[in-house]
C-alpha cells in the first residue's frame, strides 16, 4: 500500500503544474485545462484521504467536483466563444479594455 503522503505529494505536484499553466499560458483553453488539473489534484486528495479514513465522503465529493468541473468548462467555453467573437482571439491578455 502506498502511504497517503505520496498521494498528497502527487496532488500537490499536479496542483502546482496546473497553477503554473495558469500563470504562464495565455490561451483560454490552456487555462481551462490547467484548472481541470488543479481540480483533479483536489480529487486525488479526496479519494486518497477517503481511503485513509475509511469513509466514503471524500469519494462522493470528488464525483461532485468532477461534475461541477464539467459544468464549469461548459460555461467557460461559452464565454470563450463570445470572447473570440468580440476580440477575434482566445488570448486572455488581449482583452484589456477594462483596467485601473
Amino acid at each position, binding site marked *: 500500500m502506498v502511504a497517503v503522503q505520496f498521494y498528497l505529494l502527487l496532488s500537490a505536484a499536479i496542483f502546482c503544474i496546473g497553477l503554473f499553466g495558469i500563470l504562464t499560458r495565455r490561451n483560454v483553453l490552456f487555462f481551462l485545462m490547467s484548472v481541470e488539473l488543479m481540480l483533479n489534484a483536489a480529487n486525488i486528495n479526496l479519494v486518497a484521504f477517503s481511503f485513509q479514513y475509511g469513509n466514503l465522503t471524500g469519494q462522493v465529493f470528488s464525483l461532485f467536483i468532477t461534475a461541477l468541473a464539467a459544468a464549469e468548462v461548459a460555461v467557460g467555453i461559452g464565454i470563450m466563444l463570445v470572447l473570440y467573437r468580440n476580440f477575434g482571439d482566445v488570448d486572455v491578455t488581449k*482583452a484589456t479594455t477594462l483596467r485601473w
Partner: protein
Amino acid sequence: MAATSTAFAFEVAPAIAILPLASFVIALFAGKYLPKGGALAGIAATGGSLLLSLWIALTVAGGATYNEEIYSLVTTPNSFDLHFGLLLDPLSALMLVIVSLVSFLVHLFSLGYMNDEGERGLPRYYAGLGLFSFSMLAFVFADNLFMSFVFFELVGLCSWLLIGHWYREEAPPSAAKKAFLVTRFGDYFFLVGVVAIFATFGTTLFAGPESFPTLAEEALAGAGGGEAGGGAGELSTFGFGPGTWFTVLGFLVLGGVIGKSAQFPLHTWLPDAMEGPTPVSALIHAATMVAAGVYLVARMYGFYALSPTALAVIAFVGGFTALFAASMAVVKRDIKQVLAYSTISQYGYMMLGLGAGGYVAAVFHLMTHAFFKALLFLGAGAVIIAMHHRQDMWEMGGLKEKLPVTYYAFLAGSLALAGIFPFAGFWSKDEILYEALIHGLNDPLLLGGYLMGLTAIVFTGFYTFRMVLLTFHGEPRTHTARNPHSLGWSVKVPLVVLGVLATVIGLINMTPVAEATGLHIEYLHTWLEHGIPGLTVEHYDEVLETVAGYSAASLSPLLPAVLSLALALAGAGLAWALYSGPDPDHHTERLGDIRTLLMNNYYQDEYQVWIAETFGTGVARLSDRFDQSIVDGAVNGISEVSLLSGDRIRRIQTGIVSNYATLLTLGLVVLLLSVGLAGGWFL
C-alpha cells in the same frame, strides 16, 4: 426729617446716571424727529444730573455717606459677586458735581458749536454725549472696581464714537481707532488687575470692612508679625509676598490709569483725539474721561498707599509726563494740540501729586483742571467757530477785540493753567509741588518727579501765553481772523460760568495762606477728611506713614509757592517777549533740530507704530503665512498624498488577467507564510 431726606437723596442718586442714559436713548431713536437733534433732552438730563449731584453733595456735606449695592449682575453663591453699587462719599460727590457740571455746560455749548454750524449726525452726537455722561457718572459713583472697569470701558467706547464723529474724513476714524486701541492696551493691564484683585481678595469693593484696600492693609499688618506670605491669611498671593503682590496689582491697575489719563508712554492717543468736535475734547479729553484714570487712583488710594514702590513710580511717571508733554506743547501750531499736550502735562501733575502722597492736592488739581481746561477747550472751540473751523494759531491773531467774552474767559483759563496767582491752577499745582517736595526730600524718585514738575512750570507758562498771544493779540494774520464768525449765547454762557470758576475755585484750598495765617480755610481738605472710614485723608496719611514709610519734611509752603510762581511768570514773560508784537515771528524755527524732534513728539508715535507694525501686523503676517503653508498645507498635503497613492494603487489592476492570477497566487503565498510564521508551522 434730615434722615429721611438724606435717605431719599441717596435713593434717587442712581438717577444722576440714568438721566443721561435716557437722553442717550431718546437722542438715538427719536433724535431725528426732535428739535435740535436731541440736544434739549441731553441738556435737560445733564441739568437734572447736576442738580441731583449738588443735592448729593449737600447731603454728603451733612456728614452722610452711602455705600450700597443697587443692581446685582450675577449672584453666585460662594464665589465672586459681580454687582453695580453706589459709593457716595465726599470724593465721588465732588467728582459727580464736576462731571455733571462740565457735561451740562458742554451740552449747552454744543448747541452753538454743532447745531448752529449745520452739522450732520446730531442725534448720533447727542446720543454719544448722553451715553458718555451716563458712563462717566456711573464710573464716578461705582462702589467696586469691577463696576469701575465696566464704565471705564464704556467711556472708552464713547470716546471712540465722538472722536470719530466726522467719519467721512480720513483722520477722525483713524484717531478714534488709535485712541481706543492705546487705551485698550492699558485696559488690558487693568483687566488683569481687576481679575487678579478678585482672585486675591474675593471682592473688589472700594469701601467698608470687606473692601480690598482694607483686606490688603490687614494682610500687610498681619505679615509684619510673621513670615512674609504667612500673614496674608486666607488671601492667595500667587506665590509672592503680600507686599510684592499688592504692588504688582497696583501696577496692573495703573496700566489702565496710564492709558486713560494719557500718561507716558500711552499718551500718544490724546493729541490725535483732538480730531473730534471741540466740545467733545473739552468734556472727554480734558475735563472728565481723562480724569478717570487719576480718579481711579484716588478712589483706591487706600490700596496704593500700601505700596511705596507703586507710589514712587506713579509720581515719577507723573512728573516725567508733566515735563515731557509740556515741552511738546511749546512748538505746536494747532490751538487744540497745544491744549491736548497741556492736558497730558496737567494730568502728569496730578499723578505726581498722588504718587507723592498729596491726595488732597491731586484731587484739588483734578477739580481746578477740570474747570479751567474745559474752559480753555470751550474757548478754543469758540475761537474755532469764529475762525470757520480753522485751528492753526498762525492763521489767527487779534481776536481779542472781536471776541471779548471769549478772550477774557480764555485768559482766565490760561492764567489758571499757567499757575499764576491767584487763579485756580496756581493753588492746586503749587500744592502738588509742595507735597512732592516735602516727601521727596527723603526719596530721590519723588524728588526727581518734583524737579521735573518744577521745570515743566516754565514750559507751561511759555506755551500758554504763546497760545494766548498768537490767538488773541497782535494783528489778524488772515482774512478769516479779520472777519470772525459771531458767537451765540449758548457759547458764551458756559465760557462765563467756567471763567468765573477758573478764577475763584482755587480759593477753596489755599494751603500757603492757611499755613501763613493759621486760618482754617483748607475747605477741600476738610471736605475730604470726613466720609467713610478708610476712605479719608487722615487714614491715607496714616497708612502712607506707617506702611509706605512716607515722611514729610517740615517746610514752609510759602517759599516753594513763590518759586513756582516765579517760574511760571518767567515762562509767561518769555512768551510775552517773543510773541507780543503785532506780527510775531516763528521763533520756534530757531530751535532747529529740537523743534523737529518736538514737532514729531519725540517720535513717540513712530516707535509705537513701529512696535505695533512689527509685533502686531508683522507677526500676524508671519502667522498667516505659517498657517496657510504649514498648518493648512499639511491638511491639503495629506489629501494630495492620499489621492496620489490612490492613483498609484489602482495601477495594480493592469487589465491583464494573467497578472491577476499571479498576484492572486502571490497574495495567497504571503498569507500562507504570515499565518504559518505566526502559527509556527515551519519550526
